[in-house]
């Protein structure tokens, strides 16, 4: 299915939750309501014509005014790809976890939490994955000041 058809299917099925979609961009995407991520993901995975069974990438992006989580989904059967974006305020970004649909999300969400501070409710063990467990601050945020010392060791 071409990205345009996917975008149309999504807007027709979920209407209000799809805030904006750009199917003809180089990387066709559509922005969705953060609260509705679980239903839309469920639909994308189980719908026969879409069957997006391969979550390729789950990453956070810090635009100065908002934090975005990008889901790049791919279907092995139909060989088409689509991207979902959830936009959240910078203060307390929170999302439901999609770990139940794709287990790959487990570690990717932990990394997003570690780097951006996005809390994924319902995640099996949400703790830092790359930085030490007691590291303060979220490194990949644009306003992140790297600490001078960590446990009084110069960084």
């Amino acid at each position, binding site marked *: 299915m071409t990205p345009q058809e996917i975008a149309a299917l999504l807007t027709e099925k979920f209407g209000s939750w799809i805030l904006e979609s750009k199917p003809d*961009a180089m990387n066709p995407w559509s922005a969705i309501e953060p609260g509705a991520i679980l239903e839309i993901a469920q639909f994308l995975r189980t719908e026969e014509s879409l069957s997006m069974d391969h*979550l*390729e990438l789950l990453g956070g*992006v810090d635009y100065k005014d908002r934090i975005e989580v990008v889901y790049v989904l791919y279907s092995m059967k139909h*060989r088409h790809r689509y991207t979902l974006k959830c936009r959240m305020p910078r203060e307390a970004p929170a999302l439901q976890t999609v770990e139940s649909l794709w287990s*790959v999300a*487990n570690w990717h969400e932990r990394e997003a939490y570690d780097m951006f501070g996005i809390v994924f409710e319902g995640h099996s063990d949400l703790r830092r994955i790359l930085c030490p467990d007691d590291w303060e601050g979220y490194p990949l945020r644009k306003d992140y000041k790297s600490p001078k010392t960590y446990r009084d060791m110069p960084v």
Partner: protein
Amino acid sequence: MEVDYSGDVMTLNMGPQHPSTHGVLRLELKTDGEIVADAIPHIGYLHRCFEKHVENVDYAGVVPYTDRMDYCAAMNMELGYVLAVEKLLGIQVNNRVRCIRIIMAELDRIASHLIAAGTYGNDIGSFTPFLWCFRDRETILDLFEETCGARLLYNYNWIGGLMFDVKPGFEKKVIEFVDYFEPQVENLNTILSDNYIFIKRTASVGILSPEVAISYGVTGPNLRGSGVKFDVRKDEPYLGYQDIDFEIAVGTGEHGPLGSCWDRYMVRIREVKESCKIIRQAVAQMTPGDVRESVPKRIKPPAGEVYMRTECPRGELGYYIVSDGGPKPYRLKVKSPCFTVMSAFREVSRGSMIADIVAILGSFDIVLGEIDR
């Protein structure tokens, strides 16, 4: 830290410094005698903040950083990044650059699979194939050094072209190597893959079923070992792979259930033979031309984002670049294949023995530089 003496479960730390963890990885094994009840991987020891670094280095300067991620297959890592930025900039490279890139990527794939096969033999206990694999890998490294001057981290692929053109006589040397190398793989097979002890150690160990593999986002030889025929070079051909004919090596489960360590290992060996075939065809398609023809003077891509994935020896490598029009990438997210395979490790290795933990880890062929970035 209270210690629980809750029976005979002993936590054994296959710690960051261990001969067979293929890098700096800590496995917290909950063992009951020889049987491992649970193996929790702890990563992050080799985290060098690649994604933070990249935000204040210009586009061309990022290429040496991408080499440092998966240092066993640096050529493919560069290729992924360079193709992503070229897609962002909308640059088309001429046929010569395309063919040289395919040859270099496939040579690098052979070198990386040789490391995988060699160290896997080491993990299972037979030390000789390691030395044979590295002896053959040296010839490839010599080819790389002669062309771009470096042996491990090349910075050879530039955005829009290559650093140097290949020396005259390079094609002849590549063909010479491929002809010499193909029978060598048989040697490796007799001492390792068909050896009954090796089969007994790997054939029914670490079963990764196709559903679990897809759900954990496992890609590359590890996924093909479980019988799923999925290869980015065939699935979404880039760089002209569409007019090169080669098969995808898939695990067949000859010696035991499908998706075992032996299948993943055998997929890599068969892939090496396919790579030799690809190299021969790519050398045949080479046409003269200037390699630095379409290298842009100032690289300032238009604001936007791109997601580009390539088939690197360890799986499907994805680059997600967001650019804000400036000379520096605004955000670069890397989808690392070893990261996803490692998340599946805990489920695959439940209930196996300590010797199998090492076998499973070796069959996944992970590189910690790529997991921790």
